[in-house]
């Protein structure tokens, strides 16, 4: 379980890589990873290595979204595994976030 953050595109994109279980234990490092960056336009949460996600992860993503929208930035969730994407869909997160699967935008109605 870890959060690794790095900037891309001259600091305009901040990538947050989630590894292992995306649960409450990550609430502190996750917030720390996105706080204190200025001039970021896109927060990209890379979930390629996230095996599991509980409701606290959804809460954290919502708080990130609020933080980003306060800066006029957007949040992209990318490379979700199937189970994780199901959780995102059941919470209707596809209406709140741009969800990309393997770099391609995946839009669903359900």
């Amino acid at each position, binding site marked *: 379980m870890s959060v690794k953050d790095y900037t891309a595109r001259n600091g305009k994109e901040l990538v947050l890589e989630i590894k292992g279980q995306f*649960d*409450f234990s990550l*609430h*502190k490092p996750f*917030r720390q990873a996105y706080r204190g960056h200025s001039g970021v336009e896109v927060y990209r949460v890379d979930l390629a290595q996230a095996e599991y*996600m*509980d*409701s*606290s992860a*959804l*809460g*954290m993503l*919502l*708080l990130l979204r609020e933080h980003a929208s306060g800066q006029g930035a957007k949040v992209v969730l990318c490379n979700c595994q199937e189970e994780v994407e*199901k*959780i995102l869909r*059941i*919470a*209707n997160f596809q209406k709140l976030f741009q969800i990309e699967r393997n770099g391609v935008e995946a839009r669903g109605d359900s």
Partner: protein
Amino acid sequence: MTDAKAGSDTARPGTGGGLWRYGVPGVVTAAAAGGAFVWPVAAVPAVLVTAVAWLLGARLADGGQAEAEGESLEELERELRGLLHDIDDSLQAEFRTVLDDLGQIRGLVSDAVGQLNDSFHGMQAGTREQEELANNVITQTGGDSNLDQFGIRSFVQETEGILNNYVDLVVSMSRNSVETVHAMDDIATQMDGISQLLVNMKGIAEQTDLLALNASIEAARAGDSGRGFSVVAEEVRNLSVQAGEFNEKIGGEVGRVRTSVDKARKAVGDMASQDLNETLQAKDHITDMMTRLRQLDDEVEQAAGRIQQVAESIDGHVGAAVRSLQFEDIVTQLVDSSRSGVEGLDRYLSGLGHVLSETADQAEHGADYVARLAEARRRLAEQRDARESRRAEARHVAQRNMDEGDVELF
């Protein structure tokens, strides 16, 4: 027939040889052929009778030509008449059997057709009911109305709505919890700042204590003049000790608050961490259930459609069968025609027998006898022509009925 006529024309008067050779056997042949045509069973006796007639005719004629004694001629005539009577008797017996059989066939066909008609009626009623039932099923399953009818759709929709609300609730609670925990983290950080400040204050108190101690020592060295200052220095030292105690108490309180915040943080964290997999499974289950219900609905509708098609096809077959049952009419007409044919033949033979017996009674011989037989033949030929034209008319009517072939339940 023309041969027989020619034979009788060339026969010498008084002898009657041509009559015996050609006339009588000709009549017998015609009668036998008629019998065989109407009733094939009679073919064998007919052939036999014909052969005997021709043989006897030839012998009688030979006898006449040889101008044998009148006694032997009379004997031959007697024998011939006897033979014709026997033929008449056996043919009449055959005709009775044929008539009985035809009557039985007529009855059997009529009964069987009646029963078949009833069966087909029953079948038609059955297929109509089946068709209506299938139609009802189709109407009920049309669209998704039966899902609505049993409230399944609204139940599924309600359940889906409840699940969605639950998920929304959990997500929003988690968001608030995480936010609260973030605030608590901030409080903990601030508590750490307070603790740091308290450490600084503790240092100040210790330094004050040290300064007060130095002041007391300096006051003691000054003697009487420093006595008052010694009291002040002692008071300052007491105050610094008190400040130190307060500092420790505050540190203790801050530590307890920190512990409480940590506890609350854990509780809120537990609240925030809900496993959504069960909800996910429930939602998948509901979706599956709906899909299967729709499939079932479609299958029932398709099956009902097939039943309807089958019922329609059975109906068509029954209609064709009922149409075919009109053969009864035609068979009856044919049987009737055969009967009248047999009856006509019977009359023909009776007429022949009558002529023979009359000639025997009146003991006519020679030219009278020939004329009498020629007259009888002419009348019988007229009767036969009349019968044949009636039969041809009947056949024509039967054929026309068959061609029309209307669906008619009789």
